[in-house]
C-alpha cells in the first residue's frame, strides 16, 4: 500500500496547536511526523485507508465500518492503550481519527515520542551490542511479550526496526502493534496472507496454515533472531545475496551456528538462551516469559 502524500502544512491545518518538529519518516505503510503540543512530544502516524471502503460518518471510528488498514490502526491503539509495561510504546496526546486530505482518505493516531535510536540503526552504525545491552534487550522485549500475551496477543513483527533504545536509560521499547494478533478475536488478515517481516518470522508463522495455533512463543523466536543479530552482528538465517526463499528454508530447517562462533565473549548461558529461543518447535523454547526472564537474570 502507498504512503499518504500529506505535508506538515496539512497536519497544522488538521490539528491546530500541533507543531511538526521534524521531517516525516516513512515506515511501512505509515508516515510518521515528530510533533509537539504544549510540552508533550509525540509521533503522529498517518496511513491511507482503502479508497474502496464504504464512506460513512467521519466520526464513526470502528472496525466494522473501516477497512483493514483502519482496523489495524484501531487494534494498535487499543493494544498500546491497554498495556502498562515500560517496554511497550504508549499512546500519544492526539486521539485517533480519520479525515480526507488532498483527495486521500487517511487515518491518524499518535504514540509517545521516544528519544533514542531504533535497533536496526544501532547495529548498522555501532555493530554488535555489549553483553549488558543484549541482556537488557532480552529482558525488555521479553517483558513486552509477556504483557501482550497476558492479553492473549502476539506481536508478530518483532524486528530491530520495531525496537527503540531510549537515550539515557538505555532500555528497549517495542513499537508497532499494527499486525499484532489476538488469538481470541477474529483475524483481520485475509486467509492465506502472511503479515510481518519475513526474515524475522517464526517457523509456525511461515507455515501459516498453523497460524491459529500460534502463541507468544512465536514472538520469542523473533526475539531470538533479534538477540542473535545484536550479539553476532549478523542474521542467523539470512546473509547478503540470499533470496528470501533461501532464508525461509534456513529458518524452517537449518540450525544456525551458535552466536559464540561469531563472538567469543558471549557467555555460554547467553549463547544457550539465544539458541533455545531459535528452536524450530515452540515446545523447545520457553514455557513462559518468566522462565526466559529468570534465565536472563542468571547471565
Amino acid at each position, binding site marked *: 500500500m502507498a504512503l499518504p502524500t500529506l505535508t506538515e502544512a496539512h497536519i497544522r491545518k488538521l490539528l491546530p496547536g500541533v507543531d511538526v518538529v521534524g521531517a516525516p519518516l516513512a515506515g511501512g505503510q505509515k508516515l510518521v511526523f515528530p510533533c509537539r503540543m504544549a510540552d508533550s512530544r509525540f509521533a503522529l502516524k498517518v496511513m491511507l485507508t482503502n479508497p474502496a471502503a464504504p464512506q460513512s460518518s467521519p466520526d464513526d471510528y470502528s472496525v466494522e465500518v473501516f477497512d483493514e488498514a483502519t482496523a489495524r490502526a484501531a487494534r494498535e491503539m487499543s493494544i498500546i492503550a491497554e498495556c502498562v509495561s515500560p517496554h511497550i510504546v504508549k499512546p500519544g496526546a492526539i486521539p485517533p481519527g480519520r479525515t480526507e486530505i488532498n483527495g486521500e482518505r487517511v487515518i491518524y493516531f499518535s504514540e509517545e515520542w521516544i528519544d533514542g535510536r531504533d535497533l536496526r540503526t544501532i547495529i548498522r552504525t555501532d555493530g554488535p551490542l555489549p553483553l549488558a545491552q543484549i541482556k537488557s534487550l532480552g529482558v525488555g522485549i521479553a517483558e513486552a511479550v509477556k504483557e501482550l500475551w497476558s492479553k492473549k496477543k502476539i506481536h508478530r513483527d518483532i524486528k530491530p526496526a520495531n525496537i527503540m533504545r531510549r537515550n539515557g536509560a538505555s532500555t528497549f521499547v517495542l513499537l508497532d502493534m499494527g499486525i499484532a494478533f489476538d488469538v481470541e478475536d477474529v483475524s483481520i488478515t485475509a486467509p492465506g496472507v502472511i503479515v510481518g517481516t519475513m526474515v524475522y518470522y517464526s517457523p509456525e508463522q511461515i507455515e501459516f496454515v498453523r497460524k491459529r*495455533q500460534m*502463541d507468544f*512463543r512465536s514472538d520469542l523466536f523473533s526475539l531470538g533472531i533479534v538477540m542473535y543479530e545484536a550479539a553476532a552482528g549478523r542474521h542467523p538465517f539470512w546473509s547478503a545475496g540470499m533470496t528470501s526463499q533461501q532464508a525461509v528454508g534456513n529458518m524452517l530447517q537449518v540450525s544456525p551456528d551458535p552466536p559464540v562462533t561469531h563472538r567469543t565473549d558471549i557467555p555460554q548461558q547467553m549463547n544457550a538462551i539465544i539458541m533455545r529461543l531459535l528452536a524450530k518447535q515452540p*515446545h*523447545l523454547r520457553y*514455557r*513462559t516469559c518468566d*522462565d526466559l526472564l529468570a534465565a536472563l537474570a542468571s547471565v
Partner: protein
Amino acid sequence: MYTYAQHGYGKSDKIETAIRQGSVSGVILSPRDEQPERLAQYIATLRQEFADQVTILFDPQFYATTVTPVRDGYLPDYPYYQPGLTRGRFIAPLDIQQYVSDVIDYQLPLGLDRIISPTVFFSDFTDPWSQIALSMAQQSTVLGAGLAQPLLLSLVFDETALRNRTALNDFLDIISVWDVEGFYLVIRRNDTTYQAFSDDLILKNLMYLTYVLAEVNDFEIVLGYSDFVGLLLHAVGAEATGTGWYNTLRQFSLARFQPATGGRPARPRYTSDALLNSILVVPELAAIYQRGRLPQVIATTSYDGTLANGNPANAAWPPDVACLHHWEVLSRLAAEVATQGSVAASLDRLQERIQQAVATYNLLLTAGIPFEVATGQRELDVWLRAIRSFRQEAGL
C-alpha cells in the same frame, strides 16, 4: 521420588512393606480394584503411618467410561464414573465441565498429594478423541487453578500415536504451555509380551515427549505402568514411574478393563539388575545356577538370599516376595540412572548398564542357557537404538 507402586487387585501389605524399605516412594491407586470406602480408608492408613514420606495419587480411570464391553470392577461404585459413554456425550462443553468437576471434586477430600484429571483414551494425536482429551485437560486446568493440591493432567493413548512425529510435535506445542504441575501419562501397549517395546521409533518419541515436558518445560512427569522402560524415561527427566505386581500393572492394556478371555497363572519371575529384565525362575534362573553363573545375575537385595544359596528351582519365591524384590531392584536402578547430574550423564550411565546387560546375556547364551523371547535381550537392542537416536536428535 522414583518408583511408585501401581496399585491393583490383591494389594495385601506389600505396598506398606515396600514404602518402609524405601523401595517405593509413592502409590498410584486404582479405583477399579477397591471399593470407595476401603480405598479412602487405605489412603488414611498410608497417610497416618507414612505422613509425607509417600506420594499418594489416585488415577480416576475415567477412560474406562468409553470401553465396551467393559470390566470395570468397583468403578461403578464411584460417583463420578459413568459406564458406556459415547462420543456424543462429549460434545457439549457443559458435559465435559461436569465430568471434570465430578472427578476433581471426588479427589479433593481424600488427602492426596496430587489431583489427577480425568481423560479419555485416544489412538492418535489427530483423532477426534484426542481433541476430547484436550478439551477435558483444558477444562481441568481451569478448575485446577484454585486447588490446594497440584494438578497432574492425565493422558492415556496408544503407543502407535507416537509414530506420527508431526502430530506429536503439534500436540506438545499445545500442552507444553499449560499452567499445571505436570502430567500423568499412560501409554497403551499393543504387544502383550513382557516389556515389549519392539519399535525403537515409538520408544525414541516417548523419550522425546518425556524430555520435552520434564526437562525442557519443567513439568512433573509421572508415567504409569512403565516398569523397566521407565529407566529410559527417568534418564530424560521423568519424576516417577509406576509398576505393580501383575504383568497388567507393568504395562498398560485396555484388556485390563475388558472381559477376561482366560489365561494361565503367572510363572514366578526373578528380576535381575544385571540383565535389566525379569527372567523365569524355572527354567532360566535354574539353568543359570546349574551352569554356575548365578553370581552374574543375582541382584543382592534383601530378598536374594533365598535364591542365591541353592538351586532356585527348589526355593520358595512367592509372588509378594517377587514383587518386593522387583520394586527394590527397579528403584535402585532408577535412582542410579536419575542422579547422574544431567540428562547426558544419565543416558551415559544407562547405556553402560544396557551394554553390560547385553554382554551378560551373551555370556549366558554362550554357556548354553536359553531364554524365551520375552525374557531375552531383544529389548536391549531396541533400547540402545532408541537412546542413540534420541541423543542425536536432542543433541545430547
